[in-house]
């Protein structure tokens, strides 16, 4: 069986797989993590703000995003973003949006819902006395958040945030449904061009496995270290 396989196809397409595909995947993962954590933190702050309207909006956002499959959300944004762009810029036709921009927006907004829940737990893990003490010192709400609550919340939640990023890294493979050349997309294009599905998909699986395993091992180490510090 194995004799019929041509594993050299992997070596021949390495450049395409990693320079085109993996670069896209990692860029998307990195930027969406960055944007998702910022947006997610803002949502968590809205949720905990005590202002009824803000907190309900945040809750609705998180619940909506979390009850929809990512594939459906990817489709939603793929078709919706051109119209939103048209509305924002006042253009006469739906604007053209690149595959990268569209998926970056999708993943940022989608994963923000998950990051928001993590950050909410992080903010709630800070004892009530701290913000109370901060405001007794005359710090404003934003100063309290910036200098007292959020740094500790981030630190406490770092392992969970990173684990969510590993999930996000795996989730980016779903841009496949838009025929985008991410790592899996690149592997799949080579696989179909050369009729080498087995070799390419096994290789793609191995690469995802190795990266995610190393990352989650790192997170476990970090978790152990943070646990000792506290």
């Amino acid at each position, binding site marked *: 069986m194995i004799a019929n396989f041509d594993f050299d196809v992997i070596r021949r397409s390495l450049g395409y797989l990693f320079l085109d595909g993996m670069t896209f995947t990692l860029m998307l993962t990195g930027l969406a993590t960055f944007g998702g954590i910022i947006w997610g933190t803002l949502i968590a702050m809205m949720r905990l703000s005590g202002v009824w309207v803000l907190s309900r909006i945040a809750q609705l956002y998180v619940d909506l995003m979390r009850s929809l499959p990512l594939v459906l959300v990817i489709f939603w944004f793929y078709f919706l973003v051109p119209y939103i762009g048209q509305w924002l810029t006042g253009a006469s036709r739906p604007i053209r949006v690149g595959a990268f921009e569209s998926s970056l927006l999708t993943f940022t907004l989608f994963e923000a819902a998950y990051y928001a829940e993590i950050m909410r737990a992080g903010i709630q893990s800070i004892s009530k006395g701290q913000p109370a003490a901060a405001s007794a010192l005359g710090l404003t709400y934003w100063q309290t958040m910036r200098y007292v609550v959020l740094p500790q919340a981030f630190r406490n939640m770092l392992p969970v945030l990173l684990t969510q990023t590993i999930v996000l890294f795996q989730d980016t493979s779903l841009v496949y449904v838009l025929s985008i050349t991410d790592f899996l997309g690149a592997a799949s294009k080579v696989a179909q061009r050369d009729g080498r599905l087995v070799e390419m998909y096994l290789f793609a699986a191995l690469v*995802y496995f190795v990266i995610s395993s190393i990352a989650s091992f790192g997170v476990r180490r970090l978790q152990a270290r943070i646990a000792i510090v506290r």
Partner: protein
Amino acid sequence: MNYHWNWHIFFEPSPNGTGTYLDMLLSGLMVTIVTSLAAWVIALATGAIVGVMRTLPSKVANFFGFCYVEFFRNMPLLVQLFLWFFVLPELLPHAWGLWLKQLPNAPFYTAAIGTGLFMSARVAEQTRAGINSLPRGQKMAATALGLRTAQVYRYVLLPISFRIILPPLTSEFLSTIKNTSVALTIGLIELTAEARAMQEFSFQVFEAFTAATVLYLLINIVVVIAMHFVERRVAIPGYISGK
């Protein structure tokens, strides 16, 4: 926005000749529900076994459980489905591979088993966490009473730890439902795929996706309410969430 809304589209006949667009979406909904239930049965059964293995004193069982969870957790679901769907038949002996490829409903079986195994790693982690959250004394007391390991799990540890992990299991079940949509890539015509097909046939993008969104929300609400009911029913008075 110069988008032409047409909410009556759902009652217009769909080009695949099986009824209206609404029928199309509803049949997708059925596929989603059936696939998720099948996947969930696999995930629960396998996940519970692997989760228990990770708490056993045996090093071998522990290591197997660890490898199992790492294997299924560290690859994207999409890649796993591709492995089962495209790669597995080629690696098997020729006759078996041919039989697999000619299987009617192959996308359904692949989706149910693939999603089920993917989720089983998560269920295993929850089961392990649930068992480990019990005070050590419970296991010791059960052993001191003369119960064998299997009996300790059956009568003491599992009944309580499953009650503890019921809320996280509910969200894992919701994830299973959402994850079945990934199977549209291997040709499973579930809810998201039907919405996509409706969009391609009718060009009414936002109506199609709105309908799919509403249906997913409905499934979520039904599951959450049902699980609340189950939680109440199985709660032990004076313990955990019992009143």
